[in-house]
């Protein structure tokens, strides 16, 4: 009888559930193999890799690399700020990454105006990322005017995406 109780206790101690319970009870468990600060909630750092791989990681984890604007606008709407806040978290999680912000004008803009407003939009995004804690030297801006009319295929038609800023990992 006493033997059997001892055996049961030993079996319980050896089983996984018992070990887990013991860990919960004793707050001295230290996660091993981790020396970096924890990333912001919901964001793990990207694996080291080429800019293209980092770009994919940015798109996957921040939900996108492009924000859009109204015809003459350079102000960020709620969708843009949400996307950029996620991009800022990605940048904070990947402190080695540098980005170039590529501003674009619309197809109906004159060539000069498209360059000017592309520059203005890229700088609006830059200001927002800095406000979220990203260090200014990690961000450069550029303007492609209307020289790179981004397009997406919707069904059979090609639609220009126009006024936008694309965050490109360098």
């Amino acid at each position, binding site marked *: 009888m006493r033997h059997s109780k001892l055996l049961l206790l030993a079996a319980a101690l050896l089983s996984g559930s018992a070990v887990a319970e013991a860990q919960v009870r004793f707050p001295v468990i230290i996660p091993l193999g981790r020396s970096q600060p924890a990333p912001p909630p919901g964001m793990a750092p990207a694996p080291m890799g080429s800019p293209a791989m980092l770009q994919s990681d940015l798109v996957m984890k921040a939900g996108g690399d492009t924000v859009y604007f109204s015809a*003459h606008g350079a102000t960020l709407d709620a969708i843009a700020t949400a996307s950029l806040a996620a991009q800022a978290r990605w940048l904070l999680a990947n402190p080695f990454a540098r980005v*170039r912000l*590529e501003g674009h004008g619309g*197809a*109906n*803009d*004159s*060539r*000069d*105006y498209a*360059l*000017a*407003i592309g*520059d*203005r939009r890229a*700088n*609006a995004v*830059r*200001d927002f990322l800095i406000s979220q804690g990203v260090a200014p030297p990690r961000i450069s*801006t*550029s*303007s*492609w*005017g209307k*020289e*790179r*009319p*981004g*397009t997406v295929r919707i069904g059979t038609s090609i639609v220009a995406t126009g006024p936008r800023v694309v965050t490109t990992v360098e």
Partner: protein
Amino acid sequence: MTISFSRTALLLPLLILAGTAAEAQNAAPTATVIAIPPLATAKNVDTDAGTTTWGLANQISDLIIADLKTTDAFILADVSKVRIPSYPEVTAPAYSQWRSVHAKLLLSGFVNARDDGRLTVGCYVYDVQTGRELARQGFAVSPNEWRRAAHRCADAAYVKASGKTPQFDSRIAYIAESGRPESPTKRLAMMDFDGANHIFLTDEQVTVLTPRWSPKADRIAYVSLTGGAPQVRIADVSSSGDRPLLPPGSVSFAPAFSPDGQRIALTISLNANSDIYALPVDGGGPQRLTASPAIDTSPSYSPDGSRIVFVSDRSGSPQLYVMDSDGSNQRRISFGGGDYGSPAWSPDGERIAFARSQGPLSAVGSMAVDGSNERIVTTGPNDEEPAWSPDGSRIVFQRQDPATRRTALAMVPAAGGEVRSVLTPQGASDPSWAERQE
């Protein structure tokens, strides 16, 4: 090219011209009947142009006719039944036979080979009714430059008949486009206004935009877009020199020469604010002309250099504004619907051409410099980037075919009328047009 004739002979004809110019204005838009027989030659000899002087004489008269046909200022008299003038008759016309074909003007001339291998081309414009010489011009040209002499002869007739400034010895600079519309290859190119002597000035590696001629058509200010960093550069056409206007790192675009060719107005973006500045072409610091927190861009000088028209979105949308060339007295001049862009001040100083985008359409038009009397001359899905012909009679612009997305150049009379295509080897945009001077 040198003018080899004395100009003193022009004094008397100029007095006569004053009268004929007034007549032409009253009679406008009546075209002038002009007779253009083949040029003569003192002695038919071989030249380095691939034909004899007689062959060149015919080619030159053909080119003069082709030039004048591009305007609506002339009706060509039928010279097929008229005796071709002999060499001595070039300076002593048989006026009665030109009256018999109802010509008002006669353009005759000669081509001679010189001992130094060059050619002498002379041309004369006569008033057939009064029997007076109106103009004469002479050029010593290398054989491969005979087209320039022909263009200058056509200009002599055009200036006398229309009272306008010359336009045929001119060049069009533009951006040649090829490749996919999503990321086109864009090269700086130039050609004579009739398409001859086409050459590329930049390679395929760098996207380039908005060439603007210097007033003498010897330099081109343009924008290179390496890596999305717009920067104004100056290309020297004769020496093949090419340099940035500002130190590296500055964001600059939308260049425009002042009428004396000494200064460039342009947009510089500093701290995310695009403003208009002006600076000496050959060195010196930029002077800031606008200071609004809005976008100010696309400057274009008035022909006397005293004012600048530009684009600003300080009202919320891009509109046209005029200011003195020191930046003072800024005032809005465009109040129609839609967005205005790409203003260009006319050579006579009276009007400003622009592109106006409204909904899905983009139109090219012009307005008086105070914003009144707006006149749309073309409307298409994408008619943009207007520039004036050197004499101000026409507007050249870019037009995109919505089906193929190919962009090409076209021209239209400044007062409106038939749109004609300008042929280029590839797609084409951003035209600039200037008369050569040397």
